[in-house]
């Protein structure tokens, strides 16, 4: 007996939801504009990983051949490796492990490994390789690497879950830039204002409203974003997506050992 079909089906549904949310974030942030393009690569990677993983979990959701996905994730891995190096060069290995792009590098590396290390002939539509876990999926070559990736993913997942969603810009939101609150804002209200992700969005509006409350001469707040956009572009949503992706990826790696 293999894993009941509804288990990979459930994980696949979650991954499709993550892909849909990430695509929605790209749209809501207008990622095709210069202002909205910030961290669009991360949201795009979530879209692609969500679709690819859903196809690996459920054969009928297969979209591209395994070879094509291998190329996609090889490029993605190289891109995030470069981003991580650029972000942390000269700061040592520990800084690399803590770097903002490190989880994305691990995620894309794990995807690359899963597509490249399938140890058997293709079984899914279009030769996706491991499609359909419930129906007896393929094993992976070099299973030790699968365990290493699973451990890394488990580590980054619990770390992600431990972090506050909106504290320090750790969770990249498409088109948003983390800007530590300035001294002027710190005087607003009764105390201080902590760092906020902001770039012409709801956070700026909130901070500006607070400043205006303290000083009526302050400029009026820009119009608030629609609720749907605010929800979609909330760091907490990004956090949940990352945790879901990390758990699902670790599940897949372990199942395929």
């Amino acid at each position, binding site marked *: 007996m293999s894993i009941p079909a509804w288990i990979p089906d459930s994980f696949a549904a979650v991954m499709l939801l993550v892909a849909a949310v990430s695509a929605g974030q790209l749209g809501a942030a207008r990622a095709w504009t210069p202002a909205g393009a910030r961290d669009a690569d991360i949201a795009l990677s979530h879209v692609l990983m969500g679709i690819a993983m859903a196809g690996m979990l459920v054969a009928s959701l297969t979209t591209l051949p395994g070879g094509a996905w291998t190329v996609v994730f090889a490029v993605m891995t190289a891109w995030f490796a470069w981003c991580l190096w650029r972000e942390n060069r000269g700061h040592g290995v520990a800084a690399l492990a803590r770097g903002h792009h490190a989880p994305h590098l691990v995620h894309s590396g794990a995807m690359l490994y899963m597509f490249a290390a399938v140890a058997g002939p293709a079984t899914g539509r279009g030769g996706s390789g491991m499609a359909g876990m419930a129906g007896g999926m393929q094993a992976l070559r070099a299973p030790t690497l699968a365990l290493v990736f699973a451990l890394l993913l488990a580590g980054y997942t*619990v770390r992600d879950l*431990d*972090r506050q969603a909106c504290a320090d810009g750790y969770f990249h939101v498409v088109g948003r830039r983390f800007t530590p609150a300035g001294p002027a804002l710190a005087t*607003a209200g009764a*105390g201080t204002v902590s760092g906020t992700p902001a770039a012409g969005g709801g956070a700026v509006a909130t901070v500006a409203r607070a400043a205006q409350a303290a000083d009526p001469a302050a400029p009026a707040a820009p119009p608030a974003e629609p609720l749907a956009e605010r929800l979609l572009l909330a*760091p907490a949503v990004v956090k949940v997506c990352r945790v879901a992706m990390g758990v699902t990826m670790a599940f897949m790696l372990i199942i395929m050992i």
Partner: protein
Amino acid sequence: MSDIAVPGNRAGWRDRLGVAGSVSAGLDARRVLQLILAAIWLLDGVLQYQSFMYTKAFTQMIGATSSGNPVIVAHPINWNATLVQHHLVLLNTIFATIQLLLGLGIAYRPTVRLALAASIVWSLGVWWFGEGLGGVLSGAASPLNGAPGAVIIYALLAVLLWPSDRITASGAPAPFVAARAVGAGVARGLWVVLWGSLAYFALTPASRAPTALHDMVAGMVSGEPGWLAALDRHAAALAGHSGLTASIVLAAALAVIALGVFLPPPAGRATLILALVVAAVIWVIGEAFGTILTGGGTDPNSGPLLALLALAYWPLASATAPPARVLLTDQDTEGTPA
């Protein structure tokens, strides 16, 4: 998305403590160890979803742990094995999901206490109904095969990493992380009981038989990747018929580790390093990474947990966090809606 401090606001409370905006600063040594424990629980959860766990072999594995145990212990194990066999898909999925949620719950600050408490209950249940008390009463326990049961070490870690601080009469800071919740005396006692029992199990007849070590390590080879199988074969050949000698050496090392917690910090650190090395040897050679790489491991076994335990007893260089900061670490929550 901003945290504006107002009286009574949780963020404001954080600000008054002087750590606003530095969430990562809340990651003290105990929280790091809690997160490692969470990651291991998470791994446990996904391991439980493996195909092997949905086969009769899993229920047979549970049933086999009753062997050699007193009837009063064995009967509930057999009852559990039968129950799982009849509702395998449902119960195994529940088991896996519970373990996954324990990992996520420990990692998520608002639920850390609930998850740790639940992990203690769950661990005790699994220790009896799923692991046959780790073979402690059956005479089959060996430090190299996971005695006294990996899952009981999860419970022990949950107690030692519990997010509260015991204030001593002298006001002296805890000498190591494990002492923060239960006090140094109790923590040292638990350490001695665990490592002392491992030393004892290393000398039981089943462990000290001439070919016991050889047979145990050689038995791990099947299904392992080539490099690990080769490593195990070499280790088994090295052990040969020297089971008694190896048992005595191992027991001596374990006894030194057990008593090391009473030594002054420099010597104590040396014994903790020895504990880390022994844990690594147990995990790689004795447990073959919990046989995870064969696709049939239900958990990583005791090696990583012993190492995590050793880290919880590492002497703290400086005083532990002051109470206010500890309070934040223990009760910090997501704080603001995103």
